[in-house]
């Protein structure tokens, strides 16, 4: 029953459309499509652009922190000054304070300058020694106490230069600004230039920034991130070990097992609400529960880790629940149909499919936890901590700082040299974050699939 007439009629009434000729409506739709796609690309571009801008400013400011100006010179460790008893008894030697060592260094610097034939006219002794960091004496003292046999010898030592001098070589301080600066004079900078020419002074990689403790405002050049890195690492360890399993477990329960009733609705709303609780409130909670009630110590990574865990949990739970919800029910049916228990269906099939979402939640949650300062404010971690915590698990209870705290502290300090260190600390924090998340990112890529 071919209907030839209707066919010709149709082709007569309606001219043949070509695939290449699009009608107005299709053009509009295609334009909408192109626009949509462009918006998407633009959104990516905007995000990446923002990232690039932020990163360049951080890198531009912070890379300098990894290099530092050092003064390398021979120092005669006078036994008469440093070991008054002459017995090499360490207890006696400890009586010599950093002030005594500062004098030794001062003398050594004068000698070194004289030896190189650098004139120091017009500069007082205080101004000359002002080129050195106040940390130098402490460094030397530690060196000597660690190896008392050095006393009486002349040793080559590498000492930190003052932050302003360092700033001068990094371009932060100029002759003009030095004129106005009450902490350094252009003459001192001239001297520093000469010292550099003579090879006494040089910029080199500064391991102290990564491995040293914090320093006070008088010696920005000595401030390091060691304690903060350890503190952050301890806290992240705690957060990862607690938040991920607990978060995933709670989500599984709520999404898959909990009866759907008013109570679980309440819990659900409650969890999303927890995400909206300002982080400082978690600090209040931590102070009340972990420190005042449970008697855990102040400023300790264990408390910080627990508080951050509670803070990260909602993020991980929300992400995981969303991911679990997105797994099509037919997959669950298939597993149940062959006699798998609900638990098996979930662990064997649903979780692997939800894994990308779970990992994303983890990545974002950890990023948030790693960068958070406000809750730490109330549990004593926003502090000046110079002593390194022990190895875990005891170290979890020792005072420690954290990377974002260090950033926060650095930005509050008066000396402009801390600006560079704050950015340096941010770089370290970001590297830390990337290292921490690299595994999750790689894993997520493996688990991503369409069905």
């Amino acid at each position: 029953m071919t209907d030839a007439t209707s066919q010709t009629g149709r082709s007569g009434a309606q001219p043949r459309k070509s695939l290449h000729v699009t009608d107005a409506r299709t053009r509009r739709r295609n334009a909408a499509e192109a626009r949509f796609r462009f918006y998407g690309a633009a959104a990516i571009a905007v995000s990446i652009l923002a990232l690039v801008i932020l990163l360049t400013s951080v890198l531009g400011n912070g890379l300098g922190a990894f290099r530092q100006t050092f003064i390398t010179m021979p120092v005669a460790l006078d036994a008469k000054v440093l070991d008054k008893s002459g017995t090499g008894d360490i207890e006696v030697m400890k009586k010599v304070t950093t002030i005594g060592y500062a004098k030794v260094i001062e003398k050594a610097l004068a000698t070194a300058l004289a030896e190189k034939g650098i004139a120091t006219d017009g500069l007082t002794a205080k101004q000359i020694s002002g080129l050195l960091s106040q940390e130098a004496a402490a460094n030397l003292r530690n060196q000597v106490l660690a190896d008392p046999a050095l006393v009486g010898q002349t040793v080559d030592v590498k000492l930190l230069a003052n932050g302003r001098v360092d700033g001068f070589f990094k371009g932060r301080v100029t002759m003009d600004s030095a004129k106005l600066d009450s902490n350094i004079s252009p003459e001192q900078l001239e001297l520093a230039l000469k010292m550099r020419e003579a090879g006494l002074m040089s910029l080199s990689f500064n391991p102290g920034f990564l491995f040293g403790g914090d320093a006070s405002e008088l010696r920005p050049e000595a401030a390091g991130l060691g304690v903060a890195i350890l503190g952050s690492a301890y806290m992240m360890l705690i957060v990862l070990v607690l938040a991920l399993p607990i978060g995933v477990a709670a989500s599984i329960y709520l999404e898959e097992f909990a009866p759907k009733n008013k109570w679980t609705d309440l819990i659900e709303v409650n969890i999303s609400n927890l995400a909206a609780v300002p982080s400082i409130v978690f600090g209040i909670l931590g102070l009340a529960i972990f420190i005042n009630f449970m008697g855990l110590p102040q400023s300790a990574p264990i408390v910080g880790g627990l508080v951050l865990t509670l803070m990260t949990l909602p993020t991980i739970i929300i992400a995981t629940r969303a991911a679990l919800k997105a797994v099509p029910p037919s997959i669950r049916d298939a597993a149940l149909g062959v006699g798998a228990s609900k638990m098996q269906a979930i662990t064997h099939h649903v979780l692997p499919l939800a894994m990308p979402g779970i990992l994303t939640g983890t990545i974002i949650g950890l990023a948030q936890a790693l960068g958070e300062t406000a809750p730490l404010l109330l549990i004593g971690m926003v502090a000046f901590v110079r002593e390194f915590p022990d190895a875990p698990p005891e170290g979890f209870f020792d005072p420690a700082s954290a990377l974002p705290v260090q950033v926060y502290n650095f930005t509050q300090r008066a000396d402009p040299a801390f600006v560079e260190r704050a950015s340096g600390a941010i770089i370290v924090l970001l590297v830390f974050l990337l290292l921490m998340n690299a595994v999750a990112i790689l894993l997520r890529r493996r688990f991503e699939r369409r069905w």
Partner: protein
Amino acid sequence: MNDMRIADRTVSSDTAKMTARGVQVFYGENHALKDVDIDILGGTVTAFIGPSGCGKSTFLRCLNRMNDTVSIARVLGEIKLDGEDIYDKSVDPVTLRARVGMVFQKPNPFPKSIYDNVAYGPKIHGLTKSKAELDQVVETSLKKAALWNEVKDRLHAPGTGLSGGQQQRLCIARAIATSPEVLLMDEPCSALDPIATAQVEELIDELRSQFSVVIVTHSMQQAARVSQRTAFFHLGHLVEYGETGQIFTNPQDPRTESYITGRIG
């Protein structure tokens, strides 16, 4: 192709494997199944026929409590397996489903390899002792489901990358790999060509010697070919249930007759 031969009908009706009494199912407000009484006999193939949307799948899913997973579904009535109420509190649906296997209407392979799809059931039920034995089970199941030749070279390719009919057979293989006592098959041959259909029908007949099989089908010929008993559903009612030969040759209810002769749908 005009195959209306009636399978041989030696059925001892006292070996009821599963019994359903007064089963009703509601999907929210929608009363999908109304007061169904039925006995599924052991060692028998039972066919469910009826127009689309009449409740065949719904009833099938009641038999191994798959409806538990549909949040809006509500099941009333009593269903017994070997005399035990399967909706009893103390019954573990997992054990139940291990004994009452199911092939779904829409093929739903796991997003895993073909091998893993079939091996999953035996693995979780501990049916095999060694890898070799498991390989054996996978191979036999795939062979029985008439899929082995097509996939033997790509056992580790994803099951979701198969053609529609292949997926359907994969799901059959997956279900029989766990050797359930009762096998529920929801239109297992809908996407299969005649030869594959014949092979699956052969499989069903073979299974019957040990298990009960319930099969939903839209093909009257198929029902006639493979089943010993047939149930006819219509608009949520079980209209007629009896020996296949009798249903097809001598239906009691006028609706059955109309359906079989192609007048109502």
